[in-house]
């Protein structure tokens, strides 16, 4: 891609920074990625494994389409992209100017080691006398004043920690290449023009040394969660042979204490850090994997916030299959036990009985620390729109949220700066791509254009006879006749036929084409019928007409049959680039879909917004809270008025063919079929409240869903009734098989409802039965508030839920309160059930788009953490409820993110086939098709005419699975064929 003059600054090279930098770079912009520390990667190099598959996965953020093979590196070690310049040891010291045209001053500190001379022999590190606690291992180990920033990257240059370096000079002496310069030098650089800045500084974790109740810093076997992962890591202080820090004993019993530094009003940290519950479960599983499956792992928690779509099952499996123990009790303090090094925790169990347990190690699940304030340099520019932060104000975010926010930040930056990204990429090949590649992959459908040239007097042709024979020929053939008469303008007729035709190949038959050929060729080209897809039969040739005035049907059919055969059996030339259409199809006009559509439209993309219902807005108009609903209403207005958006209501996607970059489909509306072509599709089909019979819902009027209850509470007449008792039961029919996922929004809604009821009825009894209150992030404050307003919370396990019964006309809820140690029987005026959300049925649509579906019926995204709005199909994206339960504002944010991802594809004019893609040698292929299913990227398909296996060179990632499955190497990897590799192996081994 060409570099452009304007550039962006991204501050911070962690997950958010790297993601934004790649997004910007792939969209065609130059980026300077500034990192104040000695390495890139943020916290990721410190953590080996992530949910859900307990592998790393950071490299999944690398571009997959139109990728530069040399840039495919492990993102923990570095980042290499032609559009990204990385500066470590650097900070932004000044920013002046106007949005879109800033001048930035960057100040770099020397690392003390010369990149050109250092051979990574590490002699300097060996002789350094200074030893400090290593922040990389979160103080679970030491390092020297000269050190390697990331042990797992042997290529990394050592760097000098100037604050701790005593300038003794031992390292400089020990260095064989004089690569060390002990003078700390600061260099400044001015960068201009900078169009915008993304601040991705990240969020520091809470330092538990501040509170000594847990013994951190006093008791050696009490560590932070990060330190624990470092201890288990192969690159950590124990190099993969983890033992207890105090005495080197094996680690057999580990406890996690949740909510350290969070949900703690006493220290002014009333928020929830959102991520700690999940990472504690992950670490428990990691401990079992690394230390042995009989390792005793116990998590002490208040609420297990497993609110992600697949998180509940992950937690259940940890508990039920792997034996991780969960004890609902907030630990007060960690005491030393009798044996030195052992740690003792005192707790209360589910029935309120005290218990004591001894552990080898205690892990403190530390969440977000004190939020860093933006320096004034940046803070006073954020409202201009060209300095955007990846939300530290939202608290600690996990990888998925960070990636989504990065996408959103880039999108809003581009939108605000009104930059038309399409102009940025210029095809390198210089050869325009061809739409025909696509159409050759379809079952041939021939559109015959009969051009009855009335201008010439001879020869005459009996068109009806010929048309009749054509229509009876085998195969899909459509015939349209156009008459060329003096002065008649064909263009409108022609355009209509070409637009509405179902054909993907053209056969032009005329009694005399001659002068029209050039114009027609151009017209056909514009309509997507490029030269290889068109055949011409001019009957005014001597061998056909043979000089007669009238051409017999038999004679005419001969050349027509020949041309037909050619069209039916022609194969495309190989290695042609795929043209990209600068248009998108958005399926679903709810909050997510509207957001995606508007984002794309603002970037100059033509958007077809298809909505099944008669009106647009999805669940938006059903939002009761006006404050929450307003942004959706605004989106509706913007979408309706935007010149780049065409809205089709009462419509669905009928058929689809083509490949990413150029799809062709039919939108079905009533009995009309509208053909569309588009470069990418975004699924935003949304969801609805679940229907459940749990607790007898639907049988008694007082039992309502929490959505219905909200409506009632907001109705002004509600306040006029008397009300004694409201009972709410969370997770109704939810978070248990078969619908075993958290719907994420119900707890907040229940709390909102409860607080509203409290306000209207100060003396009513309000009881909420819950399993875990999922108020993550800032919404934790709502939970705290509810408790101060005398709303009673009673926890229950899914094996012993409350029971709803009737006594005459009254509904009674029976339960057990473990805090009071007594049974409760509540005669309720209302029982509000948190029923959760389910996705709209989308199996057919997903089959059409070649996108997998989760067992719960949600669209399966490409990667839950690293590619949350992509799907495995490089041309299809997904956002909103279709993918998993979330709030409306989160859906809007996802829509923007999905739009940005689609933009990365759509801003190219063509997609060239990539290096390291699979190639099929059809002559020896046995058509067993094992390779088609084995492709993890869905990049192989069977073309319908010859049953051959074809590879989509855009989707193919060169993983080689197909080649390893194929027994006779009928499919091979370009550049790495069998005999190449075999000879390389021979040279190495023999």
């Amino acid at each position: 891609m060409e570099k452009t003059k304007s550039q962006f600054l991204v501050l911070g090279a962690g997950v958010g920074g790297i993601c934004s930098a790649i997004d910007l770079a792939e969209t065609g912009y130059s980026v300077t990625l500034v990192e104040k520390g000695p390495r890139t990667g943020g916290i990721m190099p410190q953590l080996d494994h992530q949910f859900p598959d307990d592998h790393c996965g950071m490299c999944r953020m690398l571009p997959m389409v139109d990728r530069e093979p040399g840039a495919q590196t492990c993102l923990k070690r570095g980042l290499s992209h032609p559009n990204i310049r990385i500066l470590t040891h650097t900070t932004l010291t000044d920013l002046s100017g106007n949005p879109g045209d800033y001048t930035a001053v960057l100040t770099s500190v020397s690392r003390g080691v010369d990149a050109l001379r250092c051979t990574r022999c590490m002699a300097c590190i060996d002789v350094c006398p200074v030893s400090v606690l290593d922040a990389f291992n979160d103080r679970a180990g030491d390092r020297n004043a000269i050190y390697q920033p990331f042990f797992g990257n042997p290529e990394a240059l050592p760097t000098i920690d100037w604050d701790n370096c005593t300038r003794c000079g031992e390292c400089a002496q020990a260095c064989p290449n004089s690569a060390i310069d002990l003078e700390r030098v600061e260099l400044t650089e001015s960068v201009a023009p900078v169009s915008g800045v993304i601040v991705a500084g990240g969020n520091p974790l809470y330092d538990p040394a501040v509170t000594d109740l847990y013994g951190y810093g006093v008791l050696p076997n009490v560590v932070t969660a990060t330190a624990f992962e470092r201890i288990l890591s192969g690159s950590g202080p124990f190099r993969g042979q983890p033992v207890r820090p105090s005495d080197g004993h094996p680690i057999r019993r580990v406890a996690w204490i949740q909510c350290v530094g969070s949900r703690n009003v006493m220290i002014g940290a009333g928020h929830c850090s959102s991520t700690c519950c999940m990472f504690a479960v992950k670490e428990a599983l990691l401990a079992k994997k690394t230390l042995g499956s009989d390792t005793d792992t116990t998590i002490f928690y208040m609420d297990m916030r497993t609110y992600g779509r697949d998180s509940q099952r992950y937690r259940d499996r940890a508990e039920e299959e792997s034996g991780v123990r969960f004890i609902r009790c907030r630990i007060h303090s960690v005491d030393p036990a009798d044996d030195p090094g052992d740690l003792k925790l005192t707790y209360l169990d589910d029935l309120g009985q005290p218990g004591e347990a001894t552990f080898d190690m205690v892990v403190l699940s530390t969440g977000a620390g004190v939020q860093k304030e933006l320096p004034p340099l940046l803070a006073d520019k954020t409202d201009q729109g060209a300095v955007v932060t990846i939300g530290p104000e939202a608290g600690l975010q996990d990888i998925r949220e960070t990636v989504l926010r990065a996408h959103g930040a880039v999108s809003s930056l581009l939108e605000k700066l009104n930059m038309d990204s399409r102009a940025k990429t210029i095809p390198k090949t210089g050869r325009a791509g061809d739409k025909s590649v696509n159409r050759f992959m379809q079952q041939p459908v021939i559109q015959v254009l009969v051009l009855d040239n009335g201008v010439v007097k001879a020869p005459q042709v009996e068109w009806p006879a010929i048309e009749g024979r054509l229509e009876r020929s085998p195969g899909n053939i459509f015939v349209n006749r156009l008459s060329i008469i003096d002065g008649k303008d064909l263009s409108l007729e022609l355009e209509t036929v070409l637009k509405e035709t179902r054909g993907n190949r053209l056969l032009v038959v005329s009694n005399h084409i001659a002068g029209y050929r050039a114009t027609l060729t151009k017209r056909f080209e514009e309509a997507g019928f490029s030269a290889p897809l068109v055949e011409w039969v001019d009957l005014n040739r001597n061998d056909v007409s043979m000089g007669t005035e009238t051409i017999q049907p038999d004679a005419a059919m001969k050349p027509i049959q020949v041309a037909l055969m050619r069209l039916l059996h022609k194969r495309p030339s190989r290695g042609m680039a795929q043209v990209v259409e600068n248009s998108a199809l958005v399926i679903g006009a709810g909050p997510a879909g509207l957001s995606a559509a508007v984002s794309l439209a603002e970037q100059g993309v033509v958007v077809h917004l298809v909505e099944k219902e008669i009106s647009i807005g999805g669940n938006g108009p059903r939002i009761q809270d006006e404050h929450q609903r307003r942004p959706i209403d605004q989106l509706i207005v913007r979408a309706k008025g935007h010149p780049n958006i065409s809205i089709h209501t009462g419509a669905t996607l009928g058929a689809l063919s083509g490949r990413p970059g150029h799809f062709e489909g039919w939108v079905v509306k009533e009995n009309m079929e509208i053909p569309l072509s588009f470069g990418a599709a975004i699924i935003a089909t949304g969801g609805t409240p679940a229907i459940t019979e749990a607790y007898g819902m639907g049988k008694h009027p007082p039992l309502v869903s929490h959505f219905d209850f909200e409506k009632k509470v907001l109705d002004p007449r509600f306040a006029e009734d008397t009300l004694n008792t409201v009972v709410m039961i969370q997770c109704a029919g939810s978070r248990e098989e078969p619908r075993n996922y958290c719907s994420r929004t119900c707890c907040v809604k229940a709390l909102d409802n409860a607080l509203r009821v409290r306000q209207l009825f100060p003396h009513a009894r309000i009881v909420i039965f819950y399993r875990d209150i999922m108020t993550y992030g800032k919404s934790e404050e709502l939970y705290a508030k509810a408790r101060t307003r005398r709303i009673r919370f009673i926890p229950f396990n899914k094996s012993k839920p409350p029971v709803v019964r009737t006594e005459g006309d009254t509904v009674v809820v029976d339960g057990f309160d473990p805090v009071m140690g007594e049974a409760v029987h509540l005669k309720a005026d209302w029982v509000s059930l948190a029923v959760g959300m389910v996705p709209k049925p989308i199996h057919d649509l997903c089959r059409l788009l070649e996108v997998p579906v989760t067992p719960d019926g949600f669209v399966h995204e490409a990667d839950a953490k690293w590619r949350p709005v992509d799907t495995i199909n490089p041309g299809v994206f997904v956002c909103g409820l279709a993918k998993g339960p979330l709030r409306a504002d989160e859906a809007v944010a996802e829509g923007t993110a999905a739009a940005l991802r689609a933009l990365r594809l759509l801003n190219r004019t063509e997609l060239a086939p990539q290096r390291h893609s699979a190639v099929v040698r059809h002559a020896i292929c046995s058509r067993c098709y094992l390779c088609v299913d084995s492709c993890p990227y869905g990049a192989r398909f069977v073309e319908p005419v010859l049953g051959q296996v074809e590879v989509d060179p855009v989707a193919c990632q060169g993983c080689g699975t197909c080649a390893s499955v194929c027994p006779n190497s009928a499919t091979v990897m370009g550049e790495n064929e069998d005999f190449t590799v075999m000879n390389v192996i021979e040279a190495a081994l023999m």
Partner: protein
Amino acid sequence: MIVEFENTLNTPDAVRAFLKRLLDDALADAVLTAFASPHSPLPMPTLMIDSQLLDRAVPLAPAAPLNTARMAARVLSKDIGKRIAVVLRPCEIRALIEMEKLSQCTLDPAILISMDCFGRMENDRYLELAATQDDPESAFYATPDLQEAVCPSCRACLRFIPENVDVTLCLAGQSDKKGVTLVSGSLKGEKVLKKLGGTSTDLPLGRQADIDRIMARRQTHREEMTTGAAARMADMAVFQQTIANCLNCYNCRVACPVCYCKECVFVTDVFAHRPEILMGRAMKKGAVKIPTDTTMFHLTRMAHIAHACVGCGQCSSVCPSSIPVADLFITVSEKVQEHYGYIPGQDPQRPWPFLVVETDKQVE
């Protein structure tokens, strides 16, 4: 459903009559079975439309010059709207089911017929038998000694009772009886037997005892075979000695019913070494045997199809150097199939094991 058929005829004739009825009653449009042509008593798989010609079919002949599953796969590679009754040995049936998993054939139009298999003799031995006996089929089933004269893989075969077929021809426990007992194994088979008529009956009394007797004998043979073969593959040196006379003629591969590649990789450019490569190898070691990749071929073939080997023994039958290829493959595939819990031909829905990716499983 179990039906006794034509109890006045001897068993081979009864089977022929059954096949004729299939054509005459339009239960099938064609029959693929062993047929002794006018030119030689060695039966070849033949696709028959004319039921008269079925008089010369020898479906029970203890001979199989090639694995009929390959031929059946060709005839059934596409559904052309014709029902084809195929008569195959149990091992051939298993191979055919594996072929369907590889999209090489479709079994929807087929009526699969198989029999309790007492084994096949090598071609020359069968020709000897056919020269001295008018009715080699009956002679074979009546003479236990002859049943020991079958090829080594058959002597060691434990899966000689058909599975996943539409109709089984019961031969075990039937040696002194007339007619043939037909057992349906599917709805399709049941429909055929219903239309055929014949008396409903039970399985022949002596069948299980006969099966047990044969099984016991075969288990002994099998253990001998696998122990012997394992010794001949004890390490690379021993293995190379075992296959020392291999010419890379690839007969074994051609004969194998589950080696399905249209063009084996060993005859493509991948192994067509250029002179520089051959010279290079020769220079490194001092000398190189040509053809190269002999050991490589056998090991690769094992890696590719050991999990699907049906033990038909055709590979040994066709080897011009008399290498006991079948012994080696049967021994290795036993281990591989045990490891995956995969029996070829047993479950038409189960894909080949190396294509199955299991997520969510912690590897110990």
